[in-house]
């Protein structure tokens, strides 16, 4: 469940919320961590990138605030904008990332267990070997739980084309999850 745009118990339009700074700040403080975590989890835990995409997301949301009438969930709406920003980003940078070295993160995250951190590291390392589009569709499918139709809308492909990408992405992930080619 996301956080609805509320003031008291009354759903409000975002247009009205931003007119009062205290209300705006309270709303912002409530939704910002949810949106930030959503993006952080989907961009390889790159804090700088997550901050940049969060900024782009909120700026666009404020610019389009008249389109949000408060009847749906604000975080859902913001995350949909953020998802588009993610797609844009990976389309923009995918060709460079493909050939680049992934620097391994040697740090520990005190918030999760060693075992969970190891799984996360393995999943991220594996995802990094896939194409940007394959990474996106897998994350949208298995972390966001989006339907094929919803993913197709997000990445601008047909449903059958998206299903094809998903099949290839699953297979590539399965192959790569075994480990590095090493010496």
């Amino acid at each position, binding site marked *: 469940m996301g956080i609805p745009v509320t003031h008291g118990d009354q759903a409000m339009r975002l247009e009205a919320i931003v007119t009062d700074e205290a209300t705006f700040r309270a709303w*912002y403080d409530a939704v910002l961590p949810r949106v930030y975590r959503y993006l952080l989890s989907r961009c390889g835990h790159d804090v700088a990138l997550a901050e*940049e995409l969060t900024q782009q997301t909120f700026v666009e949301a404020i610019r389009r605030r008249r389109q949000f009438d408060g009847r749906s969930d604000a975080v859902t709406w913001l995350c949909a904008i953020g998802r588009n920003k993610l797609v844009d980003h990976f389309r923009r940078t995918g060709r460079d990332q493909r050939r*680049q070295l992934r620097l391994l993160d040697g740090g520990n995250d005190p918030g999760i267990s060693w075992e969970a951190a190891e799984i996360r590291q393995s999943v991220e390392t594996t995802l990094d*070997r896939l194409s940007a589009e394959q990474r996106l569709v897998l994350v949208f499918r298995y972390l966001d739980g989006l339907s094929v139709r919803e993913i197709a809308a997000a990445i601008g492909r047909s449903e059958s084309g998206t299903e094809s990408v998903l099949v290839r992405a699953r297979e590539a992930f399965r192959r790569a999850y075994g480990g590095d080619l090493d010496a």
Partner: protein
Amino acid sequence: MRDDQLSRLFGSLADASDPDPAVADDLFELLRLEAAGQARPTRRPRMVLLAAALLVVAIGAGAALGTGLIKLPWLVVEPSPSAEPSPTSSAEPSLPVANDDVVPVGSLARTLTELPLHDRPTMDSTLHALVPAGQVVYVQAVGEFGPYEADGTVWYPVAWAADIGGWPIHPDGGFTGWLPIARDGLATVELLEVFCPSAAPGVEQLAGMTAWARLTCYSSGEIILNGGWIAGHGGIVPWTGEPAWLVLPSFDRAIAPAGGGQPFYFVTAPDVSVDPELVGGGTEVRITGHFDDPASAECVIQAGEPLTNQPAESVRTYCRERFVVTSIEVLVAGPAQPPMVGSLVGTLADGIRLREEPGTSAPILGTLAFGSWSYVADGPRQADGYTWWLLAGLGLPPETGCTSFESDPYNCPGWYGWAADASAEGDPWLATVSPDCPAESGPLTPYYGRPPLAYLACFGGESRTYVGWLLAIQDEPGGGECSWEPLTWLACGPAYQLLVGPEGEPGLALYVDPASGVDIGGVRGSWVTVNGRFDDPAAAGCTFGPNPAYYVLHCRSRFVVESIEPTTAP
């Protein structure tokens, strides 16, 4: 791997971290100003800096061409923002007066207001869609060309799909039809100018363009591409149709740009044979082909297929966007040669580990993806049954915003470590690749888009002479943030001391030893002939930072000017 297993694995990616409070405060201030209509950027994230760097170069390039236009490669130029109505405005925007220009087939245009897309050039015909303001449409032929005028309205046939730049075969998402591009003497769309990167684009440039931009820029003109033939990734063909060689998506024919990167997929004409033994393994090819093949006119999707309800013109447009290869010339047949110091190598497999030192017990720095190109800085060393080579990422050309001292895993390939060249069983992991070195000195065009270490692999320390336009922007070496005395001029380098090509392509960064007596200031903003060399002996002094050998290598990749003089435009 089952779906539930994948869901559990991906669940590990969830992150409960909070944003940095200072960043949150900065962003709120920005939003508060945005809401009040007074927004000013409070931070300068990486992409903004990169965009600024591109803009500076583009301004210089525009000045060089004398056009006064700011054009970025393969981006659609945004016309005056004042012409764009607010998408949320309920009132009809004020539209510019239409001129009498005929809109050529292949143009891109942006809608200035919501417009109806009709089956025929009349309001009485079937309405396919309402195209919102701000959408890009592609002017094409649908058996007829525009304009068609009726009842004070000028109609053109267009293709449109929401928010995308290429034509998908898509059951519900794309439309073709007739669009009113002017009514009652007022324009309802504005033509978008597409800046084509070069008359002879490279693989990386084509891969980075939208399908529409490729078609607009090159139409059916012949294009020659050099690169590595890479194995495709397989795939499920989502439809069948005729001619099969053109209408089916290409999963197994792709060429990789020099230096690695996003592959560019193509199809082969029916009379072109493909030897599967050539695919991958370091084979380098030269392919010749074109977009907008005449056979596109015959493209159809098989009756009875799920996507058979595509508008016929959509399928034809999709086919026109395919790059049809008519000849393949093998330049270097695989298997490729083993690495050599001073040459470039490419990885033949995914996940090649890079270590701090030769040996399987040395710390792992990271992994290299399939198709990554590196400069071989040292080796071979034998350790733990493997042969090891010291590999350096090639870096990116100067207009990308990367510097040699930046190691940014997202934007600047700056790795430096040891990798084994083959598995214990002898399967090759690394192979020498050719950077396709331009043979002659002269105009800079062949140099556009090349990474610095590719120059070093090509020319070593031989004397070179180039002709280009020297940007007029004044610049201090290092820009104040970098100081490596006494070699600041070579180690830090100038940001905008660029020699650009005849079409404005940023080609080469120039480095000038202040002790050499070379005066570059007097010839800024003019065509120049420059003589100099890579691998300047002074680079041996670049022993900076925690990894001195890395910086020496990057100093060696600089082009150091020995003489420069004005010349006439080529």
